[in-house]
């Protein structure tokens, strides 16, 4: 049943034929800002809460720490945003992260390669893993859920192989990525921000982004409009693999070690961040900037709970409740504004 929709904005400068039609750009901008507000509110609420619980939460130090903890999650979430928009899912990011870090560490420590070369090798590994997931799914027209689940297992096995199931100590060879820069902020954080910005532009301003959204909305229609969805799918997964690889480097740089167990279960955290950011799991709709808000919410929650020393049970219960609540608040706000 078509329920009467609340009248959207009566912007004054109506030009075209029927009814009030605000210029497209202004619609987009306003509804975009609108979406940010919902998530920003959730975030502020959380910061306020933790500040009241801990004397040291509302300090520059806390925020610098959080800023330096999120790059890995953030870059993976950018990739995952594209994956979800294209109506896919990638469960293998955590394993890819571990393998890329492992390859980089092995390249430095065992094969004695130069650091840039080793890093490139790690990134290439991630790219390859993602490309395989995409290509297998495309070639046999399989659900990406199951292909990436297979990759989750297989790539983790690969990480064990490369490290011989031992945490590889790398030392500060690649620590530069995580080292504090201006005001304690690391290069990794700046890089992550740049990737968020590029991701958003790519999604909204390029032909590629248009294709991604279209394929996620109605693949058959895109095919019949002359767009071959297959290479685009593969590219999206390959890019996500690359970003997971980058996350692996960031992780290794921070910990100065490559742990074959790192990133276990992180795929759900990444997807949660993306979905909290309002991206649809059904494809066709999403925003990289909002994903970044989702990442912030998750990071602040984790940091805050650890800082106030919440017990393990209450950590889990609160995390679960916040994930659902964030999505509810955001959804309600969007519905009220008529954008969802």
């Amino acid at each position: 049943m078509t329920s009467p929709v609340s009248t959207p904005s009566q912007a004054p400068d109506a030009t075209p034929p029927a009814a009030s039609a605000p210029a497209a750009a202004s619609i987009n901008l306003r509804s975009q800002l609108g979406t940010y507000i919902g998530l920003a509110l959730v975030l502020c609420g959380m910061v306020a809460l933790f500040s009241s619980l801990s004397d040291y939460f509302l300090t520059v130090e806390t925020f610098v720490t959080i800023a330096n903890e999120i790059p890995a999650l953030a870059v993976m979430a950018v990739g995952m945003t594209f994956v979800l928009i294209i109506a896919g899912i990638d469960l293998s990011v955590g394993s890819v992260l571990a393998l890329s870090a492992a390859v980089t560490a092995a390249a430095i420590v065992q094969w004695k390669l130069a650091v840039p070369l080793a890093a490139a090798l790690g990134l290439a590994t991630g790219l390859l893993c993602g490309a395989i997931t995409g290509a297998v799914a495309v070639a046999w027209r399989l659900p990406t859920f199951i292909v990436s689940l297979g990759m989750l297992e297989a790539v983790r096995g690969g990480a064990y192989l490369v490290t011989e199931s031992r945490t590889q100590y790398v030392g500060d060879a690649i620590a530069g990525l995580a080292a504090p820069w201006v005001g304690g902020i690391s290069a990794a954080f700046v890089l992550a921000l740049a990737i968020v910005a590029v991701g958003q532009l790519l999604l909204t301003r390029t032909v590629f982004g248009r294709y991604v959204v279209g394929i996620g909305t109605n693949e058959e229609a895109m095919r019949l409009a002359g767009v071959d969805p297959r290479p685009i799918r593969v590219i999206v997964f390959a890019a996500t693999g690359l970003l997971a690889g980058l996350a692996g480097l960031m992780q290794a740089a921070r910990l100065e070690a490559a742990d074959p167990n790192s990133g276990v279960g992180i795929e759900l955290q990444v997807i949660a961040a993306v979905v909290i950011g309002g991206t649809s799991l059904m494809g066709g709709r999403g925003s990289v900037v909002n994903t970044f808000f989702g990442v912030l919410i998750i990071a602040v929650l984790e940091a805050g709970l650890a800082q106030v020393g919440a017990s393990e049970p209450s950590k889990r219960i609160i995390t679960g409740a916040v994930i659902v609540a964030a999505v509810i608040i955001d959804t309600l706000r969007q519905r009220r504004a008529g954008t969802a």
Partner: protein
Amino acid sequence: QDKPKVALVMKSLANEFFRTMEDGAKAHQKAHASQYTLIANGIKDETDTAAQIKMVEQMVAQKINALVIAPADSKALVPVVKAAIDKGILVVNIDNQLDAAALKEKNITVPFVGPDNRAGARLVGDELARTLKAGDKVGIIEGVSTTFNAQQRTLGFQDAMKAAGVTVVGVQSGQWEIDKGNTVAAGMLREHPDLKALLAGNDSMALGAVAAVKAAGKTGKVQVVGYDNIGAIKPMLADGRVLATADQFAAKQAVFGIETALTALADKTPQASMPAVIKTDVVLVTKTSK
């Protein structure tokens, strides 16, 4: 011509500790290839009890003669161990001790070959305490809270701190993992800017703690200790970022377990009359230890 078949069932083979154990066992079998055959298995993480039970059942179906097990859970593995014993399989417990009460209820005895985790943690704690003074604050990063040895190590750390008059401001679980250990350590450092040390239940979490200390710009001001003496910790011991750890000789634990089982098989010692505990070593490791 029928060599006895021994199954070694461990926890996460993605943990260096168990990899070392597995390598030790395999090397031992190679050296004594004429005496027995070995099937080594692990589960995908430290906590997947159900998977470990399945593993034991599959080993029973393989008609093994002896089972050497590092249980993922001290209580939940008891029924399946009993089932194995009932089928005439000789069982030896290593690394993490099965729950005494549960064994008693099932009316079985299973020899434990392994170290005293509480004592080991105490050694590490005492070493740390020498650099602290009464009233200093420290935090403990615990392993998976449902495991007996994690609980024991936390107790050992607490014993040592109490003896030195040091305050433990918090115990949080880092799930035996580097990432989680890092997050928890970072939180503790922010909440307690005057924290003097972090005591981690294993070396993976200690690595995470070292990174957190560095990120907070407190290298050298906050001490870190660990447990296990894995490879990755050695450079940190060398440059002082980690003060101490404990070595519980993973490889030897498995080998002792296997040898205990082989001897009992050869002597036809019944399960019931095997010794309850065979202690293995745990030693303190610092920069200066060899």
